[in-house]
């Protein structure tokens, strides 16, 4: 067996894969959140739709996005492989097992949390990503008078839109784009979807409270000076701030828009 194959099939190698893909997904969350914060701009989605186009058409980002999809798939598959392996390691279970006495709930339920997240990701992508890529979202035209900074928004019908355009004509900036913003606003009027998103973010929170610091442990990071920082980031940034900020989006559209 070649050395790299050995690594990947070893227990620690599998952990390494879980750790690296997990951390990569964590880093994506930060970028994704910063981008999505534009949903809160009161510009009828102009910045957001612009951003959506950029993210889907800028080549380096496209490459990264495919890396991202791969990461999700690899993370999930390895999780499954590891879980099956771990089940086999204890074929006869205990009649009484009190894990709550020695470990955190989230750490023992990463599989369940991860499954919820996977369902969430599939739902989320079919709602927005798939529709965006398959012309199932409405189109919009923004005309901004650069002198007055006044923007008028016109909904376009299918025939009026061929592709994204952005130009300045006569001191009027014209942008024609897919209106993902509207799709978002539309989707988050459904209470069950909003509830599902909030649930998904709760799962994300618990998943990351354990997962973030766990990834560093797996990478062998045990420096006593920096471990407290990692723990802080894991709990407060990835476990609290990021999930709450994401959960705020559906709630914002449901209650305030």
């Amino acid at each position, binding site marked *: 067996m070649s050395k790299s194959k050995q690594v990947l099939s070893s227990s620690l190698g599998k952990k390494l894969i879980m750790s690296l893909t997990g951390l990569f997904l964590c880093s994506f969350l930060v970028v994704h959140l910063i981008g999505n914060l534009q949903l809160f701009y009161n510009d009828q989605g102009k910045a957001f739709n612009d951003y959506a186009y950029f993210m889907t058409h800028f080549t380096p980002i496209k490459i990264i996005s495919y890396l991202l999809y791969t990461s999700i798939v690899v993370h999930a598959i390895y999780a499954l492989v590891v879980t099956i392996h771990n089940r086999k*390691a204890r074929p006869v279970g205990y009649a009484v097992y009190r894990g709550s006495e*020695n470990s955190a709930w989230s750490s023992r339920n990463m599989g369940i949390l991860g499954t919820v997240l996977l369902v969430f990701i599939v739902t989320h992508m079919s709602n927005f990503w798939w529709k965006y890529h398959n012309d199932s979202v409405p189109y919009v035209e923004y005309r901004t008078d650069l002198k007055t900074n006044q923007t008028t928004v016109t909904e376009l019908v299918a025939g009026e839109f061929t592709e994204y355009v952005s130009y300045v004509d006569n001191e009027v900036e014209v942008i024609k784009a897919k209106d993902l913003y509207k799709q978002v606003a539309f989707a988050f009027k459904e209470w069950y979807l909003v509830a599902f998103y909030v649930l998904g973010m709760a799962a994300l929170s618990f998943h990351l409270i354990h997962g973030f610091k766990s990834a560093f442990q797996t990478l062998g990071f*045990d420096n006593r000076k920096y471990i407290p920082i990692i723990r802080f980031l894991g709990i407060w940034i990835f476990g609290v701030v990021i999930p709450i900020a994401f959960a705020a989006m559906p709630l914002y559209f449901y209650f305030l828009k």
Partner: protein
Amino acid sequence: MSGNMNLTLKVWRQKNDKTRGKFITYQANGISQDMSFLEMLDVVNEDLVRKGEDPIYFDHDCREGICGMCSLHINGRPHGPKQGTTTCQLHMRSFHDGQTIVIEPWRAAAFPVIKDLAVDRTAFDRIQHAGGYVNVNTGGVPDANGIPIPKTVADEAFESATCIGCGACVAACKNASAMLFVSAKISQYALLPQGQTERYSRAQAMVAQMDAEGFGNCTNTGACEAECPVGIKLTNIARMNREYLNAKLFKEEEAH
């Protein structure tokens, strides 16, 4: 001391590794708070022998918390409800009159039950055979003070070296992973200058053997650290991960 506790025990009984086991209920009456858990089982066993019934088999030897022979999963936790203690050092004052106590063997594919509450832990020995040593012969070694070792390093190596090999980490882990055990040994030698020469080949060989024995994978729940009777720390696992990945990804030396 008066023995005034009456307990109900649900004990796993299994004749050998080829037969199926089941729980049998026993009454333990007149138990004193000052008895150790194993002495309570001694009392039950003496009664069984007098009745002509096969006594409950459990592993034990030193009964002072250091040999690592005693085990027992008691009411859902390895070595019972108290942290930082082995079953032989657990006393009946940790239980109350009328309580039901469920006693099971360690559960892991790599630790097959050999009788009742005793399991075969030779997998641990085999992992040590794979590399848990420094390659020196008797004689011809330098003076003991030839290589100074900073006190902090020596102390940390000592902390790792205090593992008693009882297997509670495997028993506690929801994945039946042996990483705390393996990492403690790898850490001890990774820290000390004497362990440097085979530092990376050792990590690779011991991890490979650990995997071959069929232990589960670590998911960093920390249950092992919480249940370890001698307080072996989770940082050992981090160090093992580092040693191993370093060896596999960046070192050219092969495991031998």
